């Protein structure tokens, strides 16, 4: 075998190994993180964790109940705010607008999506906190909602455009107005994709910390209603992790595990829904 | 599954059979006009000639339309082609009947040449051939059609017999030449009617079996 051929073979094998290793690293990072969380935090996951409020340093038996409820409230608010805007906006650019407006909206959504979450937090602060002179759950929900908008909009738009033109024509030929067609045929045809889009947006903002620092802030106790600051899982993790207390460190690990587990489950469910098939078969 | 062109095919068959009935009647009436010296019958045959000719045109139009509009295959195609041929034979039968009727009007001006013996037998055979041929079409009966083919020889035989007999009469008595000659023409016309009935029978065999039985001497490979 001549030297040139030998060299080529060596390069080929080297690259194969290198790329394989990188792929392996990419995959194993997830498992590494998961493993770390389970190792450090698994022991702290107990009934107290889910039901008790945080207790002062030195005492044991505290939990993160308020953070869990707080996160739930924040995410619910974010969904109620961000999803309808994203969804209806997607309907607009998919069905009604001309290509120029659609281009502008899409581009803006992509830029918004790429904006650092801390900037979103400052923005929400200036709108929802500063004028009212206090932090609140509402403001936190608003900040997270703003982040959900571009994800929901782009994904929904994609799934709406996937619905074949023939279905629209069929409905219109029966005398359905454009809006009726959208509501009775197009959205039902794309519902799986849209549901997935919402779940993925949800999972994405569930773990955001920076916006919440400026808006919901945090709370050691229960937060009542929507106008008070509230604790949330990501912020609690941050607070506890940079503290000096071991107990709090362990709780932070546990919270991290819970958060990641939640996000993973949502992701898996979302992809399962999508893989059950698009509602419209290829003809 | 019934196709809508079947209605058109059925109508085509009905028109053909109607034409057949008219042709059959024309033969019957024209022959009896001769045998019974009945001028009224002869007139009626001449009046009804138009109906037969109109039907020929109508049937041809229907055939063209069916072929152009419906891509007929197999038995449907053979049916339409058979109808087209039978159509022509029926019209010729009608023409022959008219000729016989015209002869009848001329014959009755003279006294009868001789008692009619062979002529009624021949005409009965010819009528039977036409009737059987048409029945074979209706029932798609190959056996009946074959029987018609076999009868043709007998009809030809009668024609020859009548020729010889009448020739003898004409040579013996020159006053009977006119009517005898017309009678020979009548016999000739009846023989032609038999030939056309034979053609119809051949068409039936083609329709049913897809076999072309014309001209057995022609080599088919």
């Amino acid at each position: 075998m001549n030297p040139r051929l030998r060299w080529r073979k060596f390069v080929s094998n080297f690259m194969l190994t290198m790329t394989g290793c990188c792929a392996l690293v990419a995959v194993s990072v997830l498992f590494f993180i998961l493993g770390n969380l389970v190792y450090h935090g698994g022991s702290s996951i107990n009934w107290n964790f889910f039901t008790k409020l945080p207790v002062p340093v030195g005492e044991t038996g505290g939990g993160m109940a308020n953070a869990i409820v707080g996160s739930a409230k924040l995410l619910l608010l974010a969904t109620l705010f961000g999803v309808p805007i994203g969804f209806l906006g997607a309907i607009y650019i998919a069905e009604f607008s001309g290509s120029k407006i659609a281009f502008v909206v899409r581009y803006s959504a992509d830029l918004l999506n790429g904006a650092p979450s801390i900037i979103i937090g400052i923005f929400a602060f200036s709108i929802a906190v500063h004028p009212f002179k206090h932090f609140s759950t509402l403001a936190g929900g608003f900040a997270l909602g703003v982040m959900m908008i571009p994800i929901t909009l782009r994904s929904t738009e994609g799934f709406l455009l996937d619905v074949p033109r023939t279905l629209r024509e069929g409905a219109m030929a029966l005398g359905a107005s454009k809006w009726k067609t959208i509501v009775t045929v197009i959205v039902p045809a794309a519902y799986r994709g849209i549901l997935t889009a919402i779940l993925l947006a949800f999972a994405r903002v569930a773990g955001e910390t920076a916006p919440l620092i400026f808006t919901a802030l945090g709370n050691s106790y229960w937060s009542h209603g929507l106008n008070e600051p509230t604790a949330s899982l990501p912020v609690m993790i941050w607070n506890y992790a940079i503290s000096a207390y071991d107990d709090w460190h362990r709780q932070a690990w546990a919270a991290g595990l819970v958060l990641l587990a939640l996000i993973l489950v949502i992701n898996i469910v979302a992809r399962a829904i999508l893989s059950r098939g698009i509602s419209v078969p290829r003809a | 599954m019934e196709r809508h062109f079947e209605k058109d095919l059925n109508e085509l068959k009905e028109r053909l059979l109607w034409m057949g009935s008219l042709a059959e009647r024309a033969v019957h009436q024209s022959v009896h006009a001769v045998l019974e010296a009945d001028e009224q019958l002869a007139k009626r045959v001449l009046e009804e000639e138009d109906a037969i000719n109109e039907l020929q045109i109508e049937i041809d139009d229907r055939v063209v339309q069916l072929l152009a509009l419906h891509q007929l295959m197999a038995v449907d195609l053979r049916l339409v082609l058979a109808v087209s041929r039978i159509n022509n034979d029926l019209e010729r039968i009608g023409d022959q009947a008219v000729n016989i009727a015209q002869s009848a009007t001329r014959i009755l001006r003279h006294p009868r040449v001789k008692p009619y013996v062979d002529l009624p037998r021949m005409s009965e055979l010819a009528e039977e051939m036409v009737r059987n041929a048409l029945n074979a079409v209706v029932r798609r009966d190959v056996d009946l059609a074959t029987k018609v083919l076999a009868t043709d020889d007998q009809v030809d035989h009668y024609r020859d017999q009548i020729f010889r007999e009448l020739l003898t009469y004409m040579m013996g008595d020159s006053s009977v030449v006119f009517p005898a000659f017309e009678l020979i023409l009548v016999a000739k016309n009846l023989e032609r009617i038999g030939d056309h009935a034979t053609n119809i029978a051949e068409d039936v065999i083609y329709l049913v079996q897809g076999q072309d039985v014309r001209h057995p001497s022609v080599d088919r490979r």
Partner: protein
Amino acid sequence: MHASVRQAVSVNITPPVTTAVSRETAAPAELRMSISKVNFWYGPKQVLFDINLGITTSKVTALIGPSGCGKSTLLRTLDRMHETVRSARLEGQILLDGKNILDQDVTQLRRRVGMVFQRPNPFPKSIFENVAYGLRINGSKLPMAEAVEKSLRHAALWDEVKDQLHKSAYELSGGQQQRLCIARALAVEPEVLLLDEPCSALDPISTAKIEELLVQLKDLCTIVTVTHNMQQAARISDFTAFLLNGQIIEFSPTPQLFTKPGDPRTEAYITGRFG
């Protein structure tokens, strides 16, 4: 066919009762739709030139011609489906029962003029809901079950699906789906039914079933169909229009167009000597 033995003919025989011809040869009767001086553009490009055409009530009118001749475009103007394309522009007049369709509300128009498309396009719903769709969105107060059954019977599909009305429409075969689309269109009782190459995506047996269906549907509504299969036009239509490069070259009763066409271009097309 009576196969009885025929008697020796008596003098009096009665003629059978037959129709003169089973297709339209006389002058057109009432016109359900009439198209006059229609010109059509997609953007700067003109695709239909001075179209004048009358659609006779309760008859099947077929539009034939080579690809790109404008027959589908013309069909789609009849229920204003061309308006779904932004660059489309129409000039001229299209009347339905004497009134210009371009002046009417388009959703009302599309209840009176229905359309069936080339590829079956049932909705991702059950068979029942597909047929009921048109009725529901038009706010019909009729009892749905009866209306759905009636439409499915008219589309010759009832017997095949009567026990599975709740099943998804996508579980039907291609031919059944297309008949479902026909049933769906018929449910709103349109006066005119437009069919754009309804059989081109189907196998020969499904095609035959739908052709027979269309011949029977004439009594219910006026039918206009586009087909690239001119034999199909010959088989089922009463009137045929031949289009070429956006113009109507010839429009005649079908028997006449296919046996004695007036224009040499028509003859070249139907004898397959085109191109």
